[in-house]
């Protein structure tokens, strides 16, 4: 294993900038790693054929003495729902197989401007609907800790790619937990920025009012670096917040919780949570207290309705967002007969089971006669959850909980049991409904199975820096206790 692939993004950017190593060498090392392990991990759906050319362009710039961007020469793996010119975008779906978008997403375009190497497109649950990547039309990705396990989802490919050292950074999207949950079960860091903090332009929509692009990396500082580069106001996205990006990198460099008020959400624990998850979480809370944080318990009584509200709001929006995949203008066209028949056959053939379930669930919730009882009610619950957060953030600076009730589960275990699958997002959904920021940081291995557990830190909207401050402290303290990063303990490919 080349040393280059174990370096952090911060180290790589510095080494490329100083000329210690070329962007081409960095890229070649990662391409070699992909070549070596991705046959087993299956994190990537597409590897950029021009990755080396992108790197050489960076090296040429450096040679010419031109200024380099903050991520110059650092490979980034991109979840396959960001539109990219020159690479297909499939969203893990048969219906978009071979689609070459004629335009670039705002975020990937910012990454290119920052000098990042877009090394490839990663696997995901179809249209980001799922928590395991098993809903990908192109087969599941595998957890680098144990290839028989899921890497989480929907950004499972992005999490697996980073955990397997195929890329130091990756992009994901979080709608109900799709960045934080895979980060937790793969033992890496993943952040959901404030909704509106990172642009959705060119991010194929699942649920528009929830979808939030965000960064994944092997450590808190790298996560913050990517967070900062990808974020900021975008006039192409009407829901984008026109305000400065919170100082996340600064916070990640200077983690400190002394005097910080931290609330433990009592509603996010108890039955259904794996004991090892709860014990590692409790230890992390004790650690924070020992580092000077003032820890209290906080109740958010409406969080228990977050999951049902989410499974009304997200499918409703999805049923509308996914209507355009009808075989008329792009993507798959199947069947024969009238336009109406071809649309219905295309969609029946092009969408997988989970997508169909959610489209129909959404159509149901929005139907005349059911709207008030389902979609309307869910929107009210959303208000109550926002109020729970507001009340909590009057007492504390951040909230903490486990990221997901269990560690990584075996591929196939929940594949045809949607309700069991949905539970994976129990703790992450409230922040999505409220549009707040949240992060998952590794906090140890569950004693019963030796698999990674994540600490979930939730911050108010546009206070993303707070969660990095906490994350950085926890990471530093635990690594000094363990003597190495958590990933070093992985028995599988993540080592």
């Amino acid at each position, binding site marked *: 294993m080349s040393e280059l692939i174990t370096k952090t993004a911060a180290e790589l950017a510095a080494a490329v900038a100083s000329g210690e190593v070329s962007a081409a060498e960095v890229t070649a090392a990662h391409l070699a790693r992909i070549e070596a392990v991705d046959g087993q991990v299956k994190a990537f759906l597409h590897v950029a054929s021009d990755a080396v050319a992108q790197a050489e362009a960076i090296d040429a710039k450096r040679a010419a003495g031109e200024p380099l961007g903050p991520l110059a020469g650092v490979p980034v793996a991109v979840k396959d*729902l*960001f*539109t990219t010119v020159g690479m297909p*975008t499939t*969203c893990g779906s048969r219906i*978009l197989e071979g*689609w070459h*978008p*004629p*335009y670039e*997403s705002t975020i990937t375009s910012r990454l290119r401007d920052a000098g990042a190497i877009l090394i490839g497109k990663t696997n995901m649950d179809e249209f980001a609907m799922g928590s395991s990547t098993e809903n990908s039309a192109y087969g599941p990705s595998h957890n680098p800790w144990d290839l028989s396990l899921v890497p989480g989802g929907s950004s499972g490919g992005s999490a697996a790619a980073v955990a397997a050292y195929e890329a130091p950074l990756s992009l994901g999207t979080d709608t109900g937990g799709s960045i934080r949950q895979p980060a937790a079960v793969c033992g890496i860091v993943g952040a959901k920025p404030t909704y509106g903090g990172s642009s*959705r*332009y*060119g*991010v*194929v*929509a699942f*649920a*528009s*009012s929830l979808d939030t692009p965000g960064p994944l990396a092997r450590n808190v500082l790298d996560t913050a670096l990517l967070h900062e580069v990808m974020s900021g106001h975008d*006039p*192409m*996205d*009407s*829901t984008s917040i026109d305000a400065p990006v919170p100082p996340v990198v600064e916070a990640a460099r200077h983690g400190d919780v002394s005097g910080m008020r931290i609330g433990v959400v009592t509603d996010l624990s108890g039955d259904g949570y794996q004991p090892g998850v709860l014990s590692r979480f409790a230890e992390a809370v004790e650690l924070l207290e020992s580092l000077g944080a003032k820890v209290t318990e906080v109740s958010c009584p409406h969080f228990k309705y977050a999951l049902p509200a989410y499974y009304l709001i997200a499918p*409703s*929006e999805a*049923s*509308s967002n996914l*209507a*355009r*995949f*009808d075989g*008329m*203008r*792009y993507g798959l066209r199947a069947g024969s007969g009238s*336009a*109406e028949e071809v*649309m219905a056959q295309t969609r029946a053939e092009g969408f997988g089971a989970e997508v169909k379930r959610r489209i129909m669930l959404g*159509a149901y919730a*929005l*139907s*005349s006669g059911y*709207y008030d009882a389902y*979609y309307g009610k869910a929107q009210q619950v959303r208000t109550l959850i926002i109020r729970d957060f507001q009340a909590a953030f009057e007492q504390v600076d951040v909230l903490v909980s486990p990221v997901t009730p269990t560690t990584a589960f075996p591929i196939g275990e929940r594949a045809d049991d949607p309700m069991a699958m949905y539970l994976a997002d129990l703790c992450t959904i409230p922040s999505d409904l409220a549009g707040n920021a949240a992060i998952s940081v590794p906090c140890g291995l569950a004693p019963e199975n030796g698999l990674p557990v994540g600490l979930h830190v939730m911050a108010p909207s546009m206070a993303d820096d707070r969660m990095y401050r906490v994350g950085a402290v926890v990471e530093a303290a635990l690594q000094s206790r363990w003597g190495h990063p958590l990933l070093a303990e992985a028995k599988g490919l993540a080592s």
Partner: protein
Amino acid sequence: MTVMYEEALQKYEPVFGLETHVELGTRTKMFCGCTTVFGADPNTQVCPVCLGLPGSLPVVNRLAIEYAIKIGLALNCSIASWCRFARKNYFYPDMPKDFQISQYDEPLCADGYLDVLVGGETVRVGIERVHLEEDTGKSLHVGGATGRIQGAEYSLVDYNRAGIPLVEIVTKPVPGTGYMAPEVAKAYVTELRDVLRSLGVSDVRMEEGSMRCDVNTSLSVLGSGVLGTRTETKNVNSLRSVERAMHSEIERQAFVLDTGDRVIQETRHFHEDTGTTTSGRSKEEAQDYRYFPEPDLVPVAPASSWVEEIRASLPELPSARRSRLLSAWSLSELEFEALRNAGALDVVEATVAHGASPADARKWWLGELARKANDAGVEVSSLPITSEAVARVSALVSAGTLNDRLAREVIDGVLEGEGTPDEVVEKRGLAVVSDDSALLSAIDEALAANPAVAGKVRSGKVAAAGVIVGAVMKATGGKADAARVRELILERLS
């Protein structure tokens, strides 16, 4: 198949409503920066947003909001202090996202009215709502009969029109207009068109589809007070068609009711060629649009200061102009309507502004010039003569420099491009002969040639002088001022 219109109206009371879609005249589309030029090559004014490509997002055109508020204010609506866009979900190949961004239960403007003038009477048409939405693409149906959708083998879609801002103006149901209903409907659309034109928010060209009407019609049994089932007639794309479509639909529904059937709530399509409607899809069979607030757009909350600023910038509206001109020009409602229907309001007003009397200005534009326009098959306002020129001709007549016949010749000259009225007078030598000595010699010649007539006049039969006037006019080639000639004859013979 149908009953006669008059017969139908003896038993039934028509209630109608109109939904009018108007393409706004913004430079760019509702939610993206694509241009909106009419008649451009197919798919040259499209981008990821209006093509509905995965990942693309809409951003609202501020000017479209401003135009919609303008329309709402002109139609006496209240403007919402907070409202949202909503998605109307249905599948159709010319709709790129398979939903339309529209507004549902929170329209930008609501609850107004428009007064329209029909046969000298004012009818107040209530406005339910004015909301914004996006237009769809256009399909070309290939194979089968004459480009119709029925029997076509396939269709070709051009998305240039997709995303052009549309304002939908919905009336409240209009009852109580009896047999005048189709005429009132037409007058409403005409008035609405004039309002929109005066606001400068749309080119309102029905023939290019920038203004399109759906006509809702129902019949209730006279005196029953029970509303009938309504049908929605689409594709009504000219003022005349509005009237014809409703007329035909009243006859059809009366026939259905007379035969004991019930009217089906459905969409119907109007056919210009036959003047009749045919059944489209039935609304009773599950068209569930599943409206919900558009999550990709944030709410619109126009500040009252902005609304007031827009209100202050409104131009004079047709109804205000009507009252002003009625009193300033001492017109009857019917005379006003004649002017408006002739499309001559602007030119007459401009002619008056250039110094002509309202009566003279109307006389020229509704008389001689209207005939010329009619002969040429153009609108009177597009004749190649300016209001200033008409005012000048009128002034020359008042000054006695031209008589009516010469004035018409001057107008011919101007229309033929010979220059200003004064230049035409000069070039064609058209001024009346105002030199008394020249007239007197012509009078003397005429008197000499008609001694009997001269005698009659002398003996007091003044009316006989006309013969001499005629002879003088003939001798001067019509360039004499007949009144002056008469005066001179009478002086000569007194």
